[in-house]
């Protein structure tokens, strides 16, 4: 790293994250969007590559980034404005999903964030664009992001979207930022649309996942794993009871989600929903340790202890042939040297590049983390 200006060092020292391990990098924890914007301005002028850290649960996603400066959201980790009667919440990016959901549950509400992501933060979930299993019923996380406040790579604090449940007012900056993996700047706060938790829920084992998907009226999720298939229902008690009967099965009360996959190699296979059955058949032949297929959504998450490079290549080719993708969530280096976690550059790459350059002109925000070197 080049020698830093004294003023830069003073700023970093002032904002140092007391909780972070000192591994030779600067780890700073701004407490406001303005502080984050000031950091980005300094980082841009010093040419420092910046990584953003929430719970660290998604830190292996994407191309590896060597960061000079790590910005954590641990000082922006509280609920800022919860309006239960509006079904909206504004929350600091550093708050964990579990803490937020636990608070919302006091009023029987949910932000429909990933169900099994211990330690994950709101900022991390929005930056990765990851959704929970209930996306089948409530849509992906990105559809519930009403507004984001962020510090851009060019050092400005900006707001995208509005704190109302419907808006057609300008460009969907909040939709762009969701899933951008910190490549455009730091997400400081997020406003989310909330849902009421159903009065009653049930987990119903089924023999035929595709059949359950066709039969049930808007289930919360239909998951298939190495242990079989389950249909997850929510609604009034009478509704859940009737739907369970219609599935010709006995359910158990509550939602028992599968344990998260923790294998060293973790893949996310994304295909059109009608190809999930065939994808599952293909994956079974690869002898994975764990897998969870989201029927009706088109995502199969797979865990391996080890995986042959050729087999991985076949799976990726299959997904691409279905106009989908196979993304390596963890352990690309264990599959083989130079395995690209994404697979291919995104469509409209020129437009994608111009977006990156205009939000991060000095290329300091998680440089190269996205496909196509964005």
């Amino acid at each position, binding site marked *: 790293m080049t020698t830093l200006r004294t003023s830069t060092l003073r700023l970093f020292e002032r904002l140092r994250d007391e909780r972070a391990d000192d591994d030779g990098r600067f780890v700073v924890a701004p407490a406001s969007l303005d502080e984050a914007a000031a950091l980005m301005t300094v980082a841009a002028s010093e040419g420092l590559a910046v990584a953003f850290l929430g719970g660290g649960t998604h830190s292996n996603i994407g191309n590896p980034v060597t960061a000079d400066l790590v910005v954590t959201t641990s000082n922006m980790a509280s609920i800022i404005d919860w309006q239960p009667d*509006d079904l*909206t919440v504004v929350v600091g990016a550093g708050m964990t999903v579990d803490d937020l959901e636990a608070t919302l549950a006091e009023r029987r*509400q949910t932000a429909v964030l990933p169900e099994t992501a211990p330690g994950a933060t709101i900022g991390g979930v929005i930056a990765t*664009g990851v*959704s929970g299993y209930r996306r089948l019923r409530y*849509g992906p996380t*990105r*559809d519930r992001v009403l507004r984001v406040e962020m510090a851009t790579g060019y050092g*400005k*604090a*900006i*707001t*995208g979207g*509005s*704190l109302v*449940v*419907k*808006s*057609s*007012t*300008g*460009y*969907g*900056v909040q*939709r*762009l930022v969701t899933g951008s993996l910190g490549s455009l700047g730091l997400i400081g706060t997020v406003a989310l649309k909330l*849902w*009421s938790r159903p009065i009653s829920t049930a987990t119903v084992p089924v023999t035929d996942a595709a059949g359950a998907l066709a039969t049930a*009226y*808007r289930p919360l999720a239909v998951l298939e794993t190495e242990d079989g298939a389950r249909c997850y229902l929510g*609604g*009034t008690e009478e*509704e859940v009871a*009737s*739907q369970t009967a219609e599935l010709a099965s006995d359910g158990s009360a509550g939602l028992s989600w599968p344990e998260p996959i923790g294998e060293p190699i973790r893949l996310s296979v*994304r*295909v*059109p*929903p*009608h190809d999930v059955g065939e994808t599952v058949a293909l994956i079974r032949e690869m002898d994975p340790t764990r897998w969870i297929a989201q029927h*009706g*959504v*088109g*995502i199969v998450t797979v865990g391996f202890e080890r995986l042959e490079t050729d087999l991985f290549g076949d799976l990726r080719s299959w*997904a691409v042939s*279905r106009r*989908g*993708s196979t*993304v390596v969530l963890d352990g690309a280096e264990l599959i083989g040297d130079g395995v690209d976690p994404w*697979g291919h550059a*995104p*469509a*409209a790459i020129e*437009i*994608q590049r*111009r*977006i990156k*350059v*205009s*939000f991060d002109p000095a290329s300091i925000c998680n440089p190269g983390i996205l496909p196509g070197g964005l």
Partner: protein
Amino acid sequence: MHVANSCADAGRSGSEVFTLPHDRRGDDPGRYDVTMDPTVELIDLLGASRVHTHPVDRIIYAKDSGVTAGDPAVIVLPDTTEEVAAVVRIASRAGIPIVARGAGTGLAGGAVPAPGSIVIVLTRLNAIEEVDEIGRTAWVGPGVVNLDLSRALADRGLHFAPDPASQQSSTIGGNVGTNAGGPHCLAEGTTAAHILGVEMVTADGDVVIVGGEAPDEPGYDLRGLIVGSEGTLGIVTRVLVRLIQNPPDVVTMLLVFENIHQAAQTVSDIVATGLVPAALEMMDQPMIVAVENFMHAGLPTDAGAVLIAEVVGHPAGTVVEAALIEEIGRRNDAREIRTAADDDERALLWKGRKNAFGSIAQSAPDYYLSDTVVPRTRFVDVLDEIYAIAERDGLRLMNVFHAGDGNFHPLVTFDASEPGMSEKVINAAHDMVHAAVAAGGTLSGEHGIGLEKRDLMHLVFTPEDLDAQARIRDAFDPEGSLNPGKILPAGARLTEERDA
């Protein structure tokens, strides 16, 4: 906002409206040289029958459903994506701006053509293809009419959820452009939640597909930007729509109240229970009278307000939800609660609501319609302010609301031939927007910004926010040739940033 059926805006000529932001002209002052004539090339491409330059055609396509008129040079009606791309390349070479449009039902001036522009009419791209009943998606042309799509899918038990009041004529492409809403977006979200991918022609004339049947495409979510971009980022030539299962049961209720506050409180109380009905629509008394005189839907004209509440789903759920709504209505002194006995009665109730704007023509020569949205808990406060503004200025106000979403559509009826009246109405409408913004609301819930609200964007966004939006636009359309002058006010791109 929208001034309809009138010459209220006659003072604003096309060229005044289209004073282009200096920073969007690039370095070439001759970029919008409207004397360049691409007509010959366009006729070679499409044939004379699909290229129109006659003054009458240019007048027909000079407007959307607002009154602000533009001045296109030529109108083209392509049949295919390839033809659209070829038109864009011709326009690009000639340095001529392009404005895409569907049925022209927009109210914010989003499809009003820049002077000398090529209008690309996309209504002939109207195929419904690749319906996937398992994945519950379909690829459709942007020219497919909203209601035709749901009708075509009815026998497969599927529908497209966004249902703007214009759904009998508005197109899917237009719905994408404005991120359109409708009564049933309360539970299902607006158009952005129902578009999984688009095929589009870029400003360079390339054809790209962003998004798709497979979820979570790696890279930036360009699809999410295209929705609501009013034709300024690309020209959408095919749309992958998400389809929703038709509900096994529907309960539609009409709740009748003595005054608007009881109705508004009922809405707040319903939302506060956490129940999100399929729709929660409200009309005040002047609107009820106008609709009833026009439609004869059986609405009580002496009521202060009516609420249409609809719950859908499994019958074991709807019965409970309907009972809850009834209980909340009674608690707020509903004087009558009617439940539609069958599909015909339900259709009649909805027909009254969806033809609300059409019924206005009977009561006044002109109307001015606004579209703002506020946090739902501020709905009653802002409603009072809106009535106070109308009373202050002696204006006739009627209201139809997507009440569950906090989305207002205050509508002022007037006679534009009265001197000074148009200015008075516009002034009052601006005050109503200010009231919504002061309550934490925003400019538009579903109509878009277009021309009408472009210069109000600073009310809800800082210069830095607008600069960020301008960066996005420039990334898609560096030359500024796609629907110029819409959404962002002049000078939105902060020049010192651009020069840096």
